[in-house]
C-alpha cells in the first residue's frame, strides 16, 4: 500500500518540502501552461493571489485575462463561468470560503450540475469550483463550514476532497481536465501541511472516483476523507497500543463513490467507522454507513459507526476543538466496535 505523502523510491531524494497550497497552485499553473482554455477567476485571486495564496503568481505569469479578479459576487462568478464554459473555456473558480459559496448555489444546482443532462450532452460544463472548506484554523463565523453534503446531494457534480499534498496536485489536475463540473473541496487546515513532493516526481494522478488505503490493517476500517485523514492515521497509530490494527481508507472522492475499495476493506476487517467533520445528522456518514451496511451486512461484526461534528452551526474558534472529531473520539468509537463482547 502506498503511504500518505511520500512517493517511494529514488525520486524521494530530489524532493523538497512543499505545502498543499503550493501543490494546488502548481496544479493550476501546469494546467494553464498546457491548455490555453484554462482560466482562473474569483475574488482576490489576481494581484493578491487569493486570501490563502493558492493562486499566487498566476496573474503575473498568465495575465489578468487568464487569472481574473472578479467583482465581489459568487453567483456572478459561477454564472459567468457557465457562459465561458459554453464558449469552450475551462474555468477554475475560487470561492473565497465555504460559507461564501452559498450565494452561488442557485447557479450550481440549477445550471452547472444539470446543463449536460438538460442539453443531452450538447453543453457539458468543464468547470472546477474550488472551495476552501472545513474548520480547525480558528476562523470566525462563516469561515469553517463543511458543506460537502449539499454538493453530494446534487446529481451531476463530482465532489472531491484531497488529504495529501500529492493528491492535491493530482486531483486538481484531474478536476480541471474533467469534462464534468467538479466541486473541489480544499481542507483549509491542511493548506500548510507539508510533504516531500515535486510535480516532476512520479506523482500518482488517479482519475476522480478512486479511494485509497492509506494504512492497511486487519481489525477495523476507518473510512474518511479530507481534513479527517491525518486524524484517523494518528488514531490508527495510537490504537496499536490497544491491540487494534486499523485500516484507514481515504475516499478522496465523495462523488463518484468508490464502493469497491471501501467494501473490500470492510469485508476484510468486519468493522467500520466513518469519520468526518461535518454534521452527523443528514451528513455524508449516514450515506456511507448505509451503503456499507447494504453491501457488507454478512461480513459485519458490529454496526457501522459514525464520528462526526456535532449537529450545530459551526462553533466559534474558542470552542471548535470540542466540536471537531479528534483522535480520542475516533478511538472511543473503535472501542465501541467490540459489539459482540458487550451484547
Amino acid at each position, binding site marked *: 500500500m502506498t503511504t500518505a505523502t511520500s512517493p517511494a523510491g529514488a525520486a524521494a531524494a530530489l524532493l523538497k518540502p512543499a505545502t498543499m497550497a503550493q501543490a494546488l497552485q502548481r496544479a493550476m499553473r501546469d494546467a494553464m501552461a498546457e491548455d490555453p482554455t484554462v*482560466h482562473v477567476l474569483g475574488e482576490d485571486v489576481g494581484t493578491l493571489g487569493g486570501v490563502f495564496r493558492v493562486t499566487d503568481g498566476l496573474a503575473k505569469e498568465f495575465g489578468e*485575462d487568464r487569472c481574473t479578479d*472578479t*467583482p465581489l*459576487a459568487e*453567483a*456572478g462568478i*459561477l*454564472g*459567468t*463561468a*457557465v*457562459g*465561458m*464554459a*459554453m*464558449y*469552450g*473555456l475551462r*474555468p477554475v473558480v475560487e470561492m473565497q470560503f465555504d460559507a461564501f459559496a452559498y*450565494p452561488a448555489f*442557485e*447557479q450550481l444546482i*440549477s*445550471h452547472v450540475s444539470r*446543463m*449536460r*443532462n*438538460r*442539453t*443531452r*450532452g*450538447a*453543453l*457539458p460544463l468543464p468547470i472546477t469550483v474550488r472551495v476552501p472548506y472545513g474548520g480547525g484554523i480558528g476562523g470566525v463565523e462563516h469561515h469553517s463550514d463543511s458543506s460537502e453534503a449539499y454538493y453530494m446531494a446534487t*446529481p*451531476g457534480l*463530482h465532489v472531491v476532497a484531497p488529504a495529501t499534498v500529492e493528491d492535491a496536485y493530482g486531483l486538481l489536475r484531474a478536476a480541471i481536465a*474533467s*469534462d*464534468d463540473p467538479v466541486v473541489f473541496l480544499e481542507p483549509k487546515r491542511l493548506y500548510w501541511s507539508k510533504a516531500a513532493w515535486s510535480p516532476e516526481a512520479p506523482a500518482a494522478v488517479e482519475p476522480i*472516483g478512486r479511494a485509497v488505503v492509506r494504512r492497511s490493517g486487519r481489525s477495523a476500517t476507518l473510512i474518511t476523507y479530507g481534513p479527517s485523514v491525518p486524524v484517523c492515521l494518528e488514531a490508527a497509530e495510537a490504537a496499536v497500543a490497544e491491540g487494534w490494527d486499523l485500516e484507514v481508507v481515504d475516499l478522496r472522492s465523495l*462523488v*463518484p*463513490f468508490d*464502493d*469497491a475499495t471501501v467494501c473490500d476493506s470492510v469485508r476484510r476487517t468486519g468493522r467500520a467507522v466513518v469519520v468526518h467533520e461535518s454534521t452527523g445528522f443528514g451528513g455524508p456518514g449516514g450515506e456511507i454507513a448505509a451503503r456499507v451496511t447494504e453491501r457488507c451486512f454478512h461480513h459485519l461484526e458490529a454496526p457501522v459507526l459514525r464520528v462526526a461534528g456535532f449537529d450545530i452551526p459551526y462553533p466559534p474558534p474558542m470552542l471548535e476543538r470540542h466540536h471537531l472529531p479528534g483522535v480520542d473520539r475516533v478511538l472511543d468509537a473503535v472501542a465501541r466496535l467490540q459489539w459482540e463482547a458487550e451484547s
Partner: protein
Amino acid sequence: MLALRAVVYRPAPPPEWKPRTDPAPLLPDPEPYRLLGTDAAAGVDPGLLLTLHAHLVRGRRFNTQATALTRQGRLAVYPSSTGQEACQVAAALALEERDWLFPSYRDTLAAVTRGIDPVQVLTLLRGDWHTGYDPREHRTAPLSTPLATQLPHAVGLAHAARLRGDDVVALALVGDGGTSEGDFHEALNFAAVWQAPVVFLVQNNGFAISVPLAKQTAAPSLAHKAVGYGMPGRLVDGNDAPAVHRVLSDAVARARRGGGPTLVEAVTYRLEAHTNADDATRYREEPEVEAWRAHDPVVLVERELTARGLLDEQRRRSVTEDAEAMAARLRERMNADAELDPMDLFGQVYAERTSQLREQAAHLRAELEAEGEAR
C-alpha cells in the same frame, strides 16, 4: 469674565473625489423610442418592414396554436407571448448567425424566429425535460426557467468570445420581474466592468405573474437601472417592431465594436394570462387590456405597410397562409406521441456513468423487462 478666543477648526479637505463618468449620456430618453406613427417611420426600410410583418403574423399564430395545444393536453404548459411578438421577433432578427441568444421560458418565439424547429423549442414545455435543440448548433442557450439566471451566462459567453478574438455578441432576455433578482444585478455589473459585448433586453410586460411593476421596483424606469452600472439604458416601445429592431441593432453593433453592454427596456404588455394555468382577471381590469389591444404590434406594422401601399391582398393572404401552414405542421407533429426511452434517465448525468448510476440503470432495465414480460 475671561474672554476665550474661539479656536476655529478647519479640517483638511478630503482627497479629491469625483464621479468617474458623466451619467447624463447613459440616461434613457424620457419617452420610449417609437418609429411607427411618427415621421421617422418613412425612413424604415420596406424590406425590413415586410420581414418583420411576416414573422409577427407567424408569431401570433404560433402563440395561438401553442395555447390550443395546452387545451388538448399536448403541452404541459405554455407561457404565451401574444402582444409581445415585436420584442421576440426583433430580438432574433437583430442578431447575426454567430451571435448567441439567451432566452427565458417565455421566449419560445424568439427561438423559433431564430430558425429553430418549433417542436424542438417546445420540448421543455411539452413535459420532456430535455432541451430539445442543440444550443451550440443554433447559438441559443436552453430556455431558462429560474428567473435571470441565464443573464450571467450571457455575460460569460460574450466575455469568452471577446477573449478569443471573436466578434460575437450575446443578447439576453429577461422579464420585468426578473430584474429584481440578484443575478440580474450581478450580470449587469460583471458586463459593465468587463465591457462584455452583451445586450440585455427587458420585456416589461407589466406583470410578474400577478405583481405589477409598481410593486416590483421604485426605479423611474427599468432602463434607468443601467446608469448605476455604468452602461447606457434605452427605452423603447416594445410593440413597435421596427423601433425595437433599431434599438437592439444599435446596441448589438455597439457591443460588436467594443463599446460594451447596453440595457434595453421594451415597454410592452402581456395580452394573455401568465400561462394557460393562470387567471389574469384576478389582478387586472379589462379596460387596461383593451387599451393595449388597440396598440397591437401586428396591427401597427400592418397599418404602416398598408399606408405605404406595400401590403396588398395577395401579400396579406400569402403571409397568413404561410402562418397557417406552420401551425398545421406544428399541430400534426405535436399530436404524435413523444417516444421517450426510460433508460435515457441515466444518460448524460456525467460524461461517464458512475458505478452507482450503472447499478440503478441495471435495476430499471430489469423492471422494464419484467413489465414487458408481464404484458
